[in-house]
């Protein structure tokens, strides 16, 4: 399959306009990018964890989804879509359905890294034929930018504010992609909005069309929470990848593969300085925060390189 940007962008959208997400929000870009990988004629059931995405895309009586859709609660998108998939298997067995359906859940980092982790882990372990997509914007944006376990260290979030004695969030970001990979599922990958969306598209296609459970972690910036100019979404993602803050990699049947290695790593400070959530790191006396961030990214990158070699 050769990726053709023009053809892909001209496909009918499966998440249509009119939803209420902010301009410059990564969530809808992630959803459209993933759903574009569905092959023509294949139907889908989309599930959402409670999130910005959910409250903005299915506000009664309007839905932005062309496919069947279910939202149940915040912490149970994994189990909910697993239930739909179980119903599909038995209804297919009984001859009640002849169409092909794919099952795709979307949750933010709150619904995935934190409150929904158990439900997701269970669904992955049970082997449902489904894809779980985390649109990771690194904080609880729906309730107003509170820290999550995905929030990077030093982030100024509303429950980890940078103050006179606190440097912002104290803890490093949880490595969820590796936690999912440890479930030994057939496919897990990390991606973002990179270049012409080829990486997102190909990973989505693999995730959807690999039999069994698959997981995609899509870095999906939030202009309100990260405090960048909405027009800079693609630029922010590019910096995340080129600084190695968010490496592009995949684990296919246990084999780790790095999908992109920057020729020259861009210093992390270039990523940090574009975002208001890190602004306090640039105040006099806080240079150590920038140094610590660089050190952490370097360590994580070296560990990843070892896994991918």
């Amino acid at each position, binding site marked *: 399959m050769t990726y053709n940007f023009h053809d892909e962008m001209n496909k009918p959208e499966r998440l249509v306009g009119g939803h209420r997400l902010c301009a410059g929000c990564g969530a809808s870009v992630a959803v459209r990018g993933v759903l574009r990988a569905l092959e023509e004629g294949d139907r889908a*059931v989309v*599930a959402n964890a409670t999130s910005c995405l*959910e*409250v903005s895309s*299915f*506000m*009664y*009586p309007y*839905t932005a*989804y*062309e*496919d*069947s*859709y*279910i*939202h*149940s*609660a915040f*912490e*149970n998108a*994994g*189990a*909910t*879509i*697993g*239930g*739909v*998939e*179980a*119903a*599909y*298997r*038995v*209804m297919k*067995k*009984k001859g*009640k*359905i*002849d*169409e092909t*359906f794919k099952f795709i859940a979307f949750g933010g980092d709150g619904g995935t890294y934190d409150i929904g982790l*158990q*439900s997701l*882990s*269970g*669904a992955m*372990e*049970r082997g449902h034929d489904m894809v779980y997509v985390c649109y990771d914007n690194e904080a609880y944006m729906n309730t107003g930018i509170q820290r999550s376990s995905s929030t990077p260290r030093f982030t100024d979030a509303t429950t980890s504010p940078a103050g006179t004695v606190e440097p912002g969030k104290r803890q490093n970001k949880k490595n969820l992609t590796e936690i999912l990979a440890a479930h030994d599922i057939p496919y897990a990958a990390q991606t973002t909005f990179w270049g012409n969306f080829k990486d997102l598209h190909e990973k989505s296609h693999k995730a959807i069309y690999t039999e069994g459970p698959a997981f995609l972690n899509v870095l999906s910036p939030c202009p309100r929470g990260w405090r960048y100019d909405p027009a800079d979404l693609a630029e922010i993602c590019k910096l995340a990848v080129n600084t190695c803050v968010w490496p592009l990699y995949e684990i296919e049947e246990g084999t780790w593969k790095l999908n992109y290695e920057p020729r020259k790593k861009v210093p992390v400070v270039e990523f940090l300085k574009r975002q208001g959530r890190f602004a306090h790191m640039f105040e006099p006396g806080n240079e150590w925060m920038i140094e610590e961030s660089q050190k952490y990214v370097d360590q994580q990158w070296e560990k990843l390189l070892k896994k991918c070699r």
Partner: protein
Amino acid sequence: MAIKDRLSGNEAVAIAMRQINPDVMGAFPITPSTEIPQYFSSYVANGEVDTEFVAVESEHSAMSTCIGAQAAGARAVTATSSCGMALMWELLYVAASDRLPITMALVNRALTGPININNDHSDSMGARDTGWIQLYSENNQEAYDNFLMAMPIGEHPAVQLPVMVCQDGFITSHAVENMELLEDEKVKKFVGEYQPENYLLKKDGTLAIGPYGISAYYMDFKMQQVEAMKQAKPVILEVAKRFEELTGRSYGFFEEYEMADAEAALVIIGSSAGTAKAAVDQMRKEGKKVGLIKLRVFRPFPMEELAAALSKVGVVAVMDKAEGFSNAGGPLFADVRSALYDLENRPKAINYVYGLGGRDIKTTDFEAIYEELFRILKAGVTGPVYRHIGQREE
């Protein structure tokens, strides 16, 4: 010909499930309901059902699985108890609001605090406002029969609400009783196929379920549930009538026992009704006009019917096997006394909270309660309304 057997309440419900052959079961073990998914998974293992058994990692995921499956167009069941149901809590509301007629076998057990594995009704009584239909069973036969009637009630187009079929943990779930089963084909015919109008996997159609309902719409969603719960009342009676034609066993909203000329009555739920009936029999032999009402349907609450049934008695003791900490009586008492308010000559009413965490209640306790009711009748003074029985006195 009905099949005579000796079964525990758990096995009887598991057999009902096997006979129905639901599409999906999502369940997580918890005492005393654990045997139900155990029996059922052995039916799956031996190819006796077509069901996808989803062995989830928690009750929260069990109910989530059922919601996903039922929304997809399948018939979903689960079984749980106590804290397991408490973990499902928020999703009970979701299931009812989404109008998904999921069927739950609830084996009543006390909620933790302190942990206790024995029977009371604190789990389902706490869930009385979730929008689920609640059917209660006195014995194993009723647990089986109620389970067979649950889907025809819940799936009725005018209802479309989830149903929990309650029985008392250990008392009926584990005790083996003689009972009658229906033949598999008769069950399948009685329960029928699940035929929702809209579902996620419908051919040539899509469905979006579980919206964000803002203030401009939320209350109207609730009003539709209110209407469905209202509609459930005639449907419950219709289904009971059809069931009686099939089995000869008669069910209503409640059973009236020796109520025709009763002066003192109890209102009670579940297995303790059996014990209370023995006390009634004994006292009737002594010429005392006592009777009882055993409530089968707590949600929807049969307010007018219950008031009519109690309109002739002088005094009522409402028996609550759950504490509500309202300082004003248990949950059943609140509803029963409210139902009595509209009667022109309403009986005096007192409340007894009993049996918490499996504390025994004996025929002699019920006799003492009836004697107390006669004292109230004679004195014309109710005295304390909110009472407890069976607790340590020292």
